[in-house]
């Protein structure tokens, strides 16, 4: 294969995968997410790995594929399948076009920090938390940047266009509903985007070899990859061009060594080499790999000493989170169907916001600290803004980590994510002595029924066996500022009884005579 082809192939793959990933998060119509989310995310390494753990090892195919790919070809994943990697390449390209020319220089990758961080992340995960992982995992951060930062302006654009067309009587462009901005989530995504862009602008792919857990994990495999970039001592002119274009700063042109553990497989070096001094080839490992600095015992102890208090702090945060407990609102955040419960959900969700993008009713919302510091940004059900559609399973179908397990429509109807609480004194019927019933009206299972009250009024009555916790009652309740009916989260999801009823054709009863 010609050398130019490799870079071309890499760019083409990157464009295809990143465009698909962007479409999944941004498409206001929701078609992309339905069609593409599963195949796309099954190849996202850390989410696929998490899914392998959460779904008891069935869904390992994607992770195994990426691992094999890396064992064969090095970290080509980082330049093609990883949308955050490609995002950094875009920044790097922008700098090449508009900024001062950058010359990369070989640097010994910051293994200590990188693998130290991975160590803490793995330790936290084993302790039941995705704390830190969700802050640095590339796919999730890419998702948050798009879902939280890019989607709202795009929606505004669509809605503006839809409105203008509407004034001309054309309603072909549907307006899209948006969840109000969650400022903590916006700030978090902005901060991350700024950090990654700055790093990319000044230091190329440093993020991938400093903070990225996927980079660290795949680096372990890439070290042993079959195909490697090697410098041929006989044809090399010692011009150093390869080193200068290496975004990952992993080529030591003087020592004629390429650190495959840090190489992100962009193949720019092959493109830049004026001779045939560089080759991407099946190779014995001799020259090309820098042995990683082994994590020494002493350092390990230091890391453990660091990790323990950090970990403890992170986990404690989830319990000490400030919650509104004034009534009319759930004490804990309500987790989406398929989550199983708060603990299971928060220990596996990397807050990629794919479910938030897929949710047609926009009831799934970004959070900031609602779950506590350890669960920062993990989505919750926001019934003040909307409610969960009884027949919809969109979020459960797209979750890439298995934090939400896939549910069929029938299964979902038996999942109880919370139960209704009726605050009688706040109810319109009691407070104003007029009919209301908005809660019962919206309830899909009639867990909220209207029963006789004073005079000819009707008042809500709950049968929480039937309640799925969809939040329709809470959403519809017109009392302000506190809702007279609300859903209290099931910290461990329960089971709802299916309401009686068949799907048989309605029975016919045409009146003999009109009663008037």
């Amino acid at each position, binding site marked *: 294969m010609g050398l130019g082809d490799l870079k071309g192939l890499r760019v083409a793959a990157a464009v295809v995968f990143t465009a698909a990933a962007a479409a999944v998060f941004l498409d206001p119509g929701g078609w992309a997410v339905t069609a593409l989310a599963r195949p796309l995310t099954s190849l996202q390494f850390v989410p696929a790995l998490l899914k392998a753990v959460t779904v008891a090892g069935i869904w390992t195919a994607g992770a195994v594929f990426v691992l094999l790919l890396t064992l064969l070809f090095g970290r080509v994943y980082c330049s093609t399948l990883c949308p955050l990697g490609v995002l950094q390449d875009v920044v790097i390209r922008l700098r090449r076009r508009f900024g001062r020319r950058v010359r990369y220089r070989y640097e010994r990758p910051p293994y200590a920090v990188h693998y130290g961080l991975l160590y803490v992340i793995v330790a936290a995960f084993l302790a039941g938390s995705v704390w830190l992982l969700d802050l640095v995992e590339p796919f999730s951060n890419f998702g948050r940047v798009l879902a939280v930062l890019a989607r709202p302006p795009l929606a505004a654009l669509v809605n503006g266009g839809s409105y203008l067309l509407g004034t001309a009587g054309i309603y072909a462009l549907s307006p899209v509903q948006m969840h109000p901005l969650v400022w903590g989530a916006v700030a978090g995504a902005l901060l991350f985007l700024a950090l990654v862009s700055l790093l990319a602008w000044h230091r190329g792919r440093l993020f991938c070899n400093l903070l990225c857990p996927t980079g660290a994990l795949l680096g372990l495999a890439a070290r042993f990859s079959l195909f490697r970039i090697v410098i041929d001592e006989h044809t090399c002119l010692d011009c150093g061009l390869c080193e200068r274009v290496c975004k990952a700063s992993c080529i030591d042109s003087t020592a004629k060594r390429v650190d495959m553990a840090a190489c992100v497989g962009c193949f720019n070096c092959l493109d830049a080499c004026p001779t045939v001094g560089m080759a991407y080839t099946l190779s014995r490992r001799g020259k090309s790999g820098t042995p990683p600095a082994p994590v020494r015992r002493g350092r390990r102890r230091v890391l453990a000493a660091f990790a323990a208090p950090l970990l403890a702090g992170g986990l404690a945060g989830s319990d000490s989170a400030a919650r509104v407990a004034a009534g009319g609102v759930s004490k804990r955040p309500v987790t989406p169907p398929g989550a199983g419960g708060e603990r299971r959900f928060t220990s596996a969700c990397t807050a990629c916001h794919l479910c938030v993008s897929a949710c047609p009713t926009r009831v799934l919302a970004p959070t900031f600290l609602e779950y506590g510091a350890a669960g920062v940004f993990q989505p919750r059900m926001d019934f003040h803004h909307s409610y969960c559609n009884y027949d919809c399973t969109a979020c459960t179908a797209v979750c890439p980590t298995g934090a939400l397990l896939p549910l069929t429509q029938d299964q979902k109807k038996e999942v109880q994510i919370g139960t209704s609480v009726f605050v009688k004194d706040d109810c319109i019927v009691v407070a104003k002595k007029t009919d209301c*019933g908005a809660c019962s009206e919206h309830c899909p299972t009639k867990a909220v*029924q209207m029963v006789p009250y004073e005079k000819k009024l009707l008042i809500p009555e709950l049968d929480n066996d039937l309640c799925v916790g969809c939040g329709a009652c809470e959403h*519809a309740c017109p009392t302000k500022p506190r809702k007279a009916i609300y859903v209290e989260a099931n910290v461990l999801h329960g089971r709802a009884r299916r309401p*009686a009823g068949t799907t048989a054709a309605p029975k016919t009863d*045409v*009146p003999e005579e*009109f009663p008037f």
Partner: protein
Amino acid sequence: MNRRTFVRTGLGATAAAVLGRPSWALPPMAPDRPSLPYDLVAVRGAEPDVLFDRGIEALGGMRAFVRKGARVLVKPNIGWDVTPERAGNTNPRLVRRIIEHCLDAGAREVTVFDHTCDNWQRCYRNSGIEQAVKDAGGVIAPGNSESYYQEVALPRGKSLRDVKEHEVLLAADVFINVPVLKHHSSSRLTLAMKNMMGVVWDRGFWHANDLHRCIADYAAHRKPDLNVVDAYYALKRNGPRGVSTDDVVAMKSQILSADIVAADAAGAKLWGMAPEDVRHIALAAEEKTGRMDLDRLNIKRIAL
């Protein structure tokens, strides 16, 4: 709706908001009609489209309501994400047939929308109404974005003093209201008057401020030109959404009337409830928005 009417209603609404004297900004009322042959027509024993064919024929045909070049709003109930046989929404075959009659009568444009309760795209799709409208040559408009709604005052409203109405309603020359006959947990029954909650933005205010009173206030403010109560499928309990088809009875009936109160009174009786037990019907009759004394009305009954 064309740009001119948009600008006109927009200016009207703006001026109303600024001046607080909105009488000239009110929507154009339907042109005076020669009196109809019947106050109310009730048809039973056929498919929804056939029921409508016979019913509208008895009222003098659609030309009695729709003039050449008129802009028509057909407002069915599309409130819920359920299929037609669940009777949560107006029957799509009826909606289709009404649009066809309007276009036959020379309507320039027939638009359909509802401010749905469940997710609007799912409601439009799963009710079958979106497809029915497209098949008939009508326009389906979204109703779940506040930007479509403009403030209108109800000077005579007792509880409801102002609402935000959908621009399609504001621009319509003819308003055809097409509810489905349903049990309703809030308002006892939902019929023609209750169906109009789907043309305004803030329904929560109605619920929080004497629901029946608000429904009657709004009916007094904006009377449709024609009400068609779809009782092909009727929801007998667990309304307005229903839980399963067990809640539904196929009555294969339809009620047509230009009098919204009469339509509701007849609908209530057909469902099996005395009109006076539905407070908003009683209130509207009391305030002479329409009549619920059915025995004094000129009614045509058709059995097929």
